[in-house]
């Protein structure tokens, strides 16, 4: 079974990965297209690809249990904006970064609102977990710290 980092610990994945060729089924993350077909979004899990945006999800944020945002290549940073937007709009469920995410990105991913991380390269989970604590302070506001440093200086 695949593993991931969730809430600061390495855990087994309780979802099956998104698969456009598989039928939508309980316990499997939907592609956006599959998810849009669902009659009820309650407790649903959906994976967003770069370019798809999160607009379709916005009316259902209270119902969705998991949003996975895929990074097919680490250099495609659209997912950072998607995550920030979902959290800003009030999404409270699991927000998972999946795909070609690399250790250098852990802090950034956490800051924009991801609370779960599932790198394709499963061998580096421990290192990735450590890197969540690489930096201790930041200048600018983001989801994890909504006030910029200049509003927190005493």
């Amino acid at each position, binding site marked *: 079974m695949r593993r991931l980092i969730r809430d600061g610990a390495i855990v087994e994945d309780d979802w099956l990965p998104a698969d456009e060729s598989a039928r939508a089924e309980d316990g499997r993350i939907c592609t956006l297209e599959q998810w849009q077909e669902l009659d009820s979004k309650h407790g649903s899990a959906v994976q967003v690809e*770069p370019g798809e*945006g999160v607009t379709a999800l916005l009316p259902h944020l209270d119902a969705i249990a998991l949003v996975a945002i895929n990074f097919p290549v*680490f*250099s*495609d*940073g*659209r997912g*950072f*904006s*998607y995550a*920030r937007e979902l959290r*800003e709009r009030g999404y409270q469920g699991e927000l998972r970064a999946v795909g070609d995410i690399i250790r250098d*990105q852990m*802090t*950034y*991913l956490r*800051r*924009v609102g991801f609370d779960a991380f599932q790198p394709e390269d499963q061998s580096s989970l421990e290192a990735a977990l450590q890197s969540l604590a690489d*930096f201790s302070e*930041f*200048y*600018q*506001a*983001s989801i994890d710290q*909504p*006030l*910029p*440093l*200049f*509003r927190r200086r005493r």
Partner: protein
Amino acid sequence: MLRIAIPYGMLSSRQARRLARISRDYDKGYAHVSTRQNLQMNWPRLEEVPDILAELAGVEMHAIQTSGNCIRNTTTDQFAGVAPDELEDPRPWCELIRQWSTLHPEFAYLPRKFKIAVCGSTTDRAAIHTHDIGVELVANDAGELGFKVLAGGGMGRTPVIGAVIREWLDKKHLLTYLEAILRVYNQHGRRDNKFKARIKILVKAMGVDAFREAVEREWQALVDGPTTLTEEEIARSRGFFSTPDYEAFDGEAAEARLAEAGTANPIFGNWLKRNTRGHKIPGYRSVTVSLKATGFAPGDVTAEQLELVADLADEYSFGEMRTTHEQNLVLADVAMDRLLDLWHELQGAGLATPNIGYLTDMICCPGGDFCSLANAKSIPVAEAIQGRFDDLDYVYDLGELDVNISGCMNACGHHHIGHIGILGVDKKGQEFYQVSLGGSQSKDASIGKILGPSFKREDMPDIMERILSTYVTLREEEETFLDTYRRVGIEPFKERVYAAAD
């Protein structure tokens, strides 16, 4: 290559000495000033880079965001804070942008690199029209200073002059507005083709009005939010750029003494005229230390020169120096009465070439000698041209002239905005050079027009001579090269250059 960030070009003498030491201990004893006001070292050993970074950290320096598809070093006027034509010191705003953009979690993996420049004076010395975002301090109808915001300027293979997307922005909104622009760009900029990934392509594709609307929409979610600047924070940032302890001089008397010294020693007088400029404070001048001596790669500085300039900064300019996007160094605050002494010291180190703003003060990228992206060498072309135009009187007669050389389409030498731009191209494995005329990096910014088929490297000095003699023949009184070009157009140049080549 290791590129070291020099925020808006400001460098303390202590930092400069450390850079000199690093270049000596870990590299070949010299460094290169880049057109982003950063410093590059070309030969560090990969395994020693951690040690170099530790050395840099010891003087509060780093190499963060000097490469990659992120927000790069914010650049500005090298005469910020001292220029007589300044509306307001742009550096506090650059510093606020630096802090906001450093390790910004949402904008570290943009479609492409992203460059911001700030201008705070009547004359633009920061090339804001050819930046991804250009920010200019301007007054509104009520006379209140705020920001004009341009977006979508750029060079590279598709040169574009930035479009005004906001005529006036209250200063406190600077960061939220920049954030809104970046949000639009990060989500909608092209990622399928590296050559179409800069924001200029997005602005063109959407159209300026649609782009502006998209930014406004994003901005509505941010405006007056926590990232809105507070009075205290703006004051704190200004506090980093406090006025040095200037001596009180009788400005007119100091000018008179200086003029006298210049007459008594014409070589000094000439340097004074070419390499120093006016200062806000009576009795002071700003000095440009030329890194454009003939026979040396433009923008290169040796460890010894850097150490000397650091000493001179301590002795003559409050311990501070600056790098310029034209690849020179600046000592910004020198008392007029001490210029003669300073000049003697600079001259002894080959740092007083009196050519600032003239033909031989060329902007030039490292090119094929050092850069793996280059199609052609650029430094030897610069040297050959400098060598050909060794008659300073002729160079002065040509007047103000920006010559910019890039070794490839990436345009690190800013060839599109040179009055004369030279671009190295590869034709079946051979180096050729394409010439463009009529670019400008000032407030009347323009992109140069290609003259015609490209030239062999060895012909470049001849070609330059033909272009310039055409100008000399056609110019009317007091006309600069750019004035003449704009009046007569490219045809007369084309005719004469290619007629002679046949």
